[in-house]
């Protein structure tokens, strides 16, 4: 400890030899396992890309050849206005009802799944299994099964339930996490006041997660809007169905037009949900509310809302009764109209999709019989020659597109984060790029690419890689922006420059979140890869074929295979996320 003597503070400390860096302790087995998983996944990505023959040079060559085809996409052609409105309304109604359905069912499931609100081990595990199952099965799978149950007449209903079910997985999971993160103090306070379980859940947990419920709903609505395009290919009405027809009849200009409409709708939805979310999150720095609420606030402030100011007198209404309901200020007006609009939308949407009740009752009675036909699953001798290789190809497409997507998405995500981009203008520009990429339907892109690049996995891989720009860059940008800037401050205060601070503080802070996002993207890509079946790629092709040819046993075998893959992946990423925090 000689170095600590006041007489020799300048003594070169590192030469004292007293403090060599001790050997790094052996890492925890979980950490080793996680690294093994990472390396395994990376190897899988590289092998997939290699095995699928992804070759940047040929891609560029062929893209150059595709210019001729691209010229046939312009000018875009749009359906006549009446038809366009009809299609748009149908799509929006289906998407809205699907989202509402999923949110309403997710809340109780999430309550059972969250450790602080569940009623016991059994209900918790049941809820979690339901969520994992719903997450694992792509909505296309639900739609294919449901079309057998409800018959083709109720395409809209099929779309609603299929998208609703597959949304439960994600929304329920997020809500369960939110419930577990909720401040437990208020719940305890109500328990201490003698409140029973359902009382404190209702009065403290739900109000606390209400903004998240709405935010997740809006977010999921975004996703469902995109997915509805795909469901159009199996008979769910709306823009997706129109796109499918246009594509089959090779009216490429119309395809382009519809793709533009979907893109615009998605951007619109994104803006709308962004706006609603900021409204929910409340006031800006100056304490004034933004947007329309701010206007209402200001009007209210000047005129007709008289908030009592006497702090020790019970508030009374004009006729002398104790006031027990809030004055009509901006907040109450918002809540009131919020509910009114919601109810109005539900009514309008239900009316718009025109459920064929008579057919529905006819078909629902068939339900057990239809379901029984799916069992037992049987590959009819084609499994190893046909379905298994197709499954492998699907998984490969997922991995290869992740690899490709990472190269594109991570830098874009970093540039879109306000606290990383060199100038706010650049951040804004990349934000817009992300929004547009997010909105453009992958499927349309995949079809265009298939034509240009030919019938191989490259087209699918490129399309999915493009899709990850939309999702992954956004998540990465968000988590960068959410990083604790005070830590950056601390590193900066020691004289580190911009780049050093970025890597030492920002990247390291967000690394766990980024890894989680990457795993999530892998999940998304593999599920999306099954949907490329409409183009004849991978296992999804067999899924559709088995469906159109009424091979229920094969259908269920394929579905089980897809579920197995996604669940295994889910378990891996759950494990990794738990270790990497």
């Amino acid at each position: 400890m000689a170095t600590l003597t006041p007489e020799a503070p300048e003594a070169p400390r590192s030469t004292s030899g007293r403090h060599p860096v001790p050997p790094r302790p052996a890492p925890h087995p979980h950490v080793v396992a996680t690294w093994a998983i990472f390396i395994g996944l990376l190897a899988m990505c590289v092998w997939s890309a290699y095995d699928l023959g992804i070759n940047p040079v040929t891609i560029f060559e062929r893209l150059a050849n595709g210019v001729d085809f691209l010229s046939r996409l312009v000018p875009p052609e749009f359906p006549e206005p009446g038809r366009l409105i009809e299609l748009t309304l149908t799509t929006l109604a289906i998407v809205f009802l699907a989202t509402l359905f999923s949110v309403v069912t997710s809340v109780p499931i999430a309550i059972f799944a969250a450790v602080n609100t569940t009623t016991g081990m059994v209900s918790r595990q049941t809820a979690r299994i339901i969520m994992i199952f719903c997450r694992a099965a792509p909505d296309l799978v639900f739609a294919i099964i449901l079309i057998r149950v409800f018959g083709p007449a109720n395409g809209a209903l099929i779309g609603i339930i299929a998208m609703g079910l597959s949304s439960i997985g994600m929304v329920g999971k997020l809500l369960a996490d939110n419930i577990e993160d909720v401040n437990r103090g208020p719940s305890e306070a109500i328990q201490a006041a003698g409140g029973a379980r359902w009382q404190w859940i209702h009065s403290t947990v739900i109000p606390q997660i209400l903004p998240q419920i709405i935010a997740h709903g809006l977010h999921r609505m975004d996703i469902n809007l995109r997915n509805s395009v795909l469901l159009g290919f199996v008979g769910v009405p709306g823009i997706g169905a129109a796109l499918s027809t246009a594509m089959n009849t090779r009216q490429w200009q119309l395809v382009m037009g519809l793709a533009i409409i979907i893109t615009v709708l998605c951007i619109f939805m994104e803006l709308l949900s962004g706006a609603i979310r900021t409204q929910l999150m409340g006031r800006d720095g100056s304490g004034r509310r933004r947007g329309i609420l701010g206007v209402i606030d200001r009007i209210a402030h000047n005129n007709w809302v008289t908030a009592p100011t006497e702090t020790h007198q019970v508030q009374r209404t004009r006729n002398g009764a104790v006031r027990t309901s809030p004055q009509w200020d901006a907040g109450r007006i918002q809540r009131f109209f919020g509910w009114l609009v919601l109810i109005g939308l539900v009514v309008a949407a239900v009316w718009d999709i025109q459920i064929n009740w008579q057919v529905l009752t006819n078909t629902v009675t068939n339900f057990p019989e239809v379901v029984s036909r799916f069992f037992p699953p049987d590959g009819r001798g084609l499994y190893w020659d046909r379905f298994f290789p197709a499954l492998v190809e699907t998984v490969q497409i997922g991995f290869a597109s992740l690899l490709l997507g990472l190269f594109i998405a991570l830098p874009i995500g970093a540039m879109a984060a306000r606290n990383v981009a060199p100038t706010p203008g650049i951040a804004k520009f990349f934000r817009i790029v992300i929004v547009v990429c997010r909105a453009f339907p992958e499927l349309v892109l995949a079809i265009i690419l298939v034509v240009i690049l030919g019938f191989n996995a490259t087209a699918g891989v490129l399309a999915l890689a493009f899709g990850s720009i939309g999702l992954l860059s956004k998540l990465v940008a968000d988590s960068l922006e959410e990083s604790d800037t005070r830590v950056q401050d601390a590193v900066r205060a020691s004289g580190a420059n911009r780049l050093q601070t970025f890597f030492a503080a920002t990247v390291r802070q967000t690394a766990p979140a980024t890894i989680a996002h990457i795993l999530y993207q892998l999940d998304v890509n593999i599920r999306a890869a099954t949907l490329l079946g409409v183009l004849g790629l991978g296992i999804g092709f067999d899924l559709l074929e088995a469906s159109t040819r009424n091979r229920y046993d094969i259908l269920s075998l394929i579905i089980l295979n897809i579920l197995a893959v996604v669940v295994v992946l889910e378990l891996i990423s759950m494990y990794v996320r738990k270790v990497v925090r």
Partner: protein
Amino acid sequence: NGDNGDNGDNSDDNGNGGDASSLPDLREEYGGDDWPTELQFVSIPSEDQVELAVQYEVLIEMFEEALDVTIESDEVTAYAAAIEALGAGTADIANFGPFSYVVAADTAGAQSVAVAVSEQDEEPSYVSYLVTLSDNDEINGIEDVAGKTVCFVDEVSTSGRLYPLAGLMDAGVLPQGEEGVENEEEYIDPYLAGAHDNSVLAVLDGTCDAGFAYDNIVDEQMIAAGDLEEGQVKVVWESEDIPSSPFAASGNLPDDMIEAMREILIDYLNVEWLAENGYCEDTDTETGDCRHLVPTNDWGYTEATDSVFDGIRAVCEVTQATACEG
């Protein structure tokens, strides 16, 4: 090749079990030095296909051997993409549905090579049915569907949309307008079911009063799958013969190469030749094992010049369906 497992030893009617040399070297015969050596083949599940998996192995094997090429093979469902690919040169040969062939021929320069037939001298065709519930007394012919809900398959189905439309016009249910089908909704309540079996299912559950579907789905497939019981529906109308699915090649290929392909399909790829050369034993087109080697489970292929498909062009002309536009 010739390792078709189950034949082997007791081949009594032909001695030279599975001998590859029985196929001529057509590349040399035709002097096809300029032929491409790699071909991209796309197969589209055709409407009238029964089996889930179509076995193209033998066909591809024979092509590769006789033409001295390597063939890359892919399956797709979106045949719009297949047509585009043929036009763009990213695909060379394909099997098409009859209708999509017409579009491919008229817009992407595809050429018909041959058509599958189920008997040696049979016409290469099938028909579309109009079915309704057996106990439906109101509908006994196509003319009775006026004002009723009618199920079609989809916009682009040959047997599930185009021929039915033509039939409805013929019967006077729909008027023959300048622009083909006009104001269809005023005369019937059309419903696109999405698939042939969906069309029949919709009839069963009452969504539609009557529905169109091709013959085999009603006669065999749905009964086999348990979706339909015999006698549940009655057939009240049959369409004209619809040409079967042709095997087509890109017009960019050398003519003599297409000719050589035609020779393979017509002269060699049929149950008789396959049995003679030891690929299989039983030539019966209903039950034999040879039929499995012909991609469409038929007897083999027969000549189909482009004009065979004029029937479809005529229907397109009559109906002016959007699907026919290039």
